[in-house]
């Protein structure tokens, strides 16, 4: 059992939906993003997705791309991202942290060394966008062996034939990408999402969290109502980009989590 498994068991007992928030580690700087992360549980966040900055985020829209650039310009690295997680973990032993990013910084560090360091920093799961099941031997299987959840993305192009392979080595939860496209672009419709969630739950036996295109408390509630939870990323990152104070960012996060939790 990881913190992620515990969290979903807990939410299930309470009959609540999960609210998952994404921010980029080190955006706009280490201290500010640490302050935001530390405030997320009190703002109703059940699971924290921590973005690992990368120069070439091929699945992300301009909002997350620019967040990554700001972080890198501020000197953020993989190690500092882990340091940030560790600093959060010192004050919070229960809120799961999922590291989300691309493979090259991890590959560059070395998979074994990374997994030891990530586990030690208090990371609970990984979402690595450019590692489909065809490349499971790279990181997915070693991560599971090291006690980290490897959370897979399922998408509208993942058909019934492919779905069993996609969920086979997944653990923790499945992240359903509700649109074909990049982060922060189009809007997902709850009506389209509902049958997909049912299909993926049936195949995986895992909670299904829905992301991409969720940007308001109303949308957060509507999507959470048809899934086990909802992820908001670009909308929160936009507030940070606009220079909102940590308090204002967290107030916005609270409005989104209230939306999800009222579903």
């Amino acid at each position, binding site marked *: 059992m990881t913190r992620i498994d515990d969290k979903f068991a807990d939410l299930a007992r309470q009959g609540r939906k999960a609210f998952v928030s994404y921010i980029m580690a080190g955006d706009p700087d280490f201290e500010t993003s640490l302050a935001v992360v530390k405030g997320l549980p009190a703002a109703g966040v059940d699971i924290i997705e921590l973005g690992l900055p990368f*120069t070439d985020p091929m699945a992300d829209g301009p909002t997350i791309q620019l967040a990554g650039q700001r972080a890198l310009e501020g000197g953020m690295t993989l190690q500092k991202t882990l340091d940030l997680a560790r600093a959060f973990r010192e004050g919070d032993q229960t809120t799961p942290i999922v590291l989300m990013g691309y493979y*090259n910084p991890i*590959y560059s560090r070395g998979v074994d060394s990374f997994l030891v360091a990530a586990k030690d920093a208090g990371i609970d799961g990984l979402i690595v966008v450019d590692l489909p099941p065809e490349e499971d031997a790279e990181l997915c299987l070693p991560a599971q062996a090291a006690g980290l959840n490897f959370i897979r993305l399922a*998408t509208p192009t993942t058909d019934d034939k492919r779905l069993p392979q996609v969920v086979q080595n997944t653990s923790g939860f499945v992240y359903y990408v509700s649109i*074909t496209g990049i982060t922060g*672009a189009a809007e997902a419709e709850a009506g389209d999402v509902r049958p997909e969630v049912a299909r993926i739950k049936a195949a995986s036996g895992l909670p299904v969290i829905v992301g991409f295109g969720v940007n308001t408390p109303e949308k957060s509630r509507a999507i959470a109502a048809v899934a086990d939870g909802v992820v908001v990323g670009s909308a929160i990152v936009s507030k940070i980009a606009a220079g909102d104070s940590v308090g204002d960012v967290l107030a916005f996060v609270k409005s989104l989590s209230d939306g999800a939790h009222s579903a």
Partner: protein
Amino acid sequence: MANDLFNSFMTGPDERGRFGDFGGRFVSETLMPLILELEEQYEHAKTDDSFWAEMHDLWTHYVGRPSPLYLAERLTDHLGGAKVYMKRDELNHTGAHKINNVLGQIILARRMGKTRIIAETGAGQHGVATATVCAKFGLKCIVYMGAHDVERQAPNVFRMKLLGAEVVPVTSGRGTLKDAMNDALRDWVTNVRDTFYCIGTVAGPHPYPAMVRDFQSIIGKEVREQMTAAEGRLPDTLIAAIGGGSNAMGLFYPFLDDKDVGIIGVEAGGKGVNAKMEHCASLTGGRPGVLHGNRTYLLQDDDGQILEGFSISAGLDYPGIGPEHAWLHDVGRAQYVAITDKEALEAFQLCCELEGIIPALEPSHALAHVMKIAPELPKDHILCMNMCGRGDKDIFTVAKALGFEMGEFA
């Protein structure tokens, strides 16, 4: 025989799209079903005679193949050593080797019922080739091009527009080929149903590196026949410039199992392969990593962040290299060297003066290496370099580098 097969360098990639440890399919889940479908369609087309009949018909009547194999006599005399042959792929329609591959991918796209073609381009040669073939077949064409390249390759931007393509300047990153490829992938992940991504080099997720190589291999196949007709034997050394590496792979591949044929790939050394990373020599100055769907040698920092390369040639300005080159490098079948901007410019000028051929800056790098090694080689040594593009597009860049004001000639 079994032993010969075991030792072949021509069997890759394996079923996972790997050349040794390089290559693979490092893409998001949204794209995975698309590249699997492409692989299936390509595997089918590869053994379909009607597919190749269509290709050869267009290569002959639309592109102008076979391109000549030309003995550069004055250059040979000037260098005083090895005999220098040029494979004249700059004489193709659109002025470069790029169209060899584009035709194959567009025929495949039409068979798959795709109506919208996207492409990335650096120097603009692949963009022009894609726009050209799309015009011929009445397909919608969108070309992603780094904003910096839009500026330095203005003539090609106008060509693409004349051909009916939409050119999208990419401002993310530093606005070069790498960033154009990111945005093309973002387009593809958004428009999955009707769109075909026509990649211009031997990189990207499997099956692109193998597919583009197969389409470009017409270069090397022709050289085998032409050289045998001209000299009664195969060349001793092949030389080609490498950005992503498609013209080089096309020349090299049909010779990989000819153990006596030496193979040299020439990377862009920019201002010099040094700690400042002002170059694009992925094999000479990079290390293995994962980008744009494949594992290969990349220019990157200690944290695995991708570095922008530097080269006077927009077509070589890419921080990676095709995975098959990475593998050929590691197993030692091919040798890879770097040539600086300065050396390439000297070769460019010499080729104009001695042979009456204005080469593109990309093959000028290959030519510069020919100039380095030919004088030391015996006169019966046969060098064959790939003149993969013509230099019309580069005259403004060269003029600037040589300190000419274009206005002076007006």
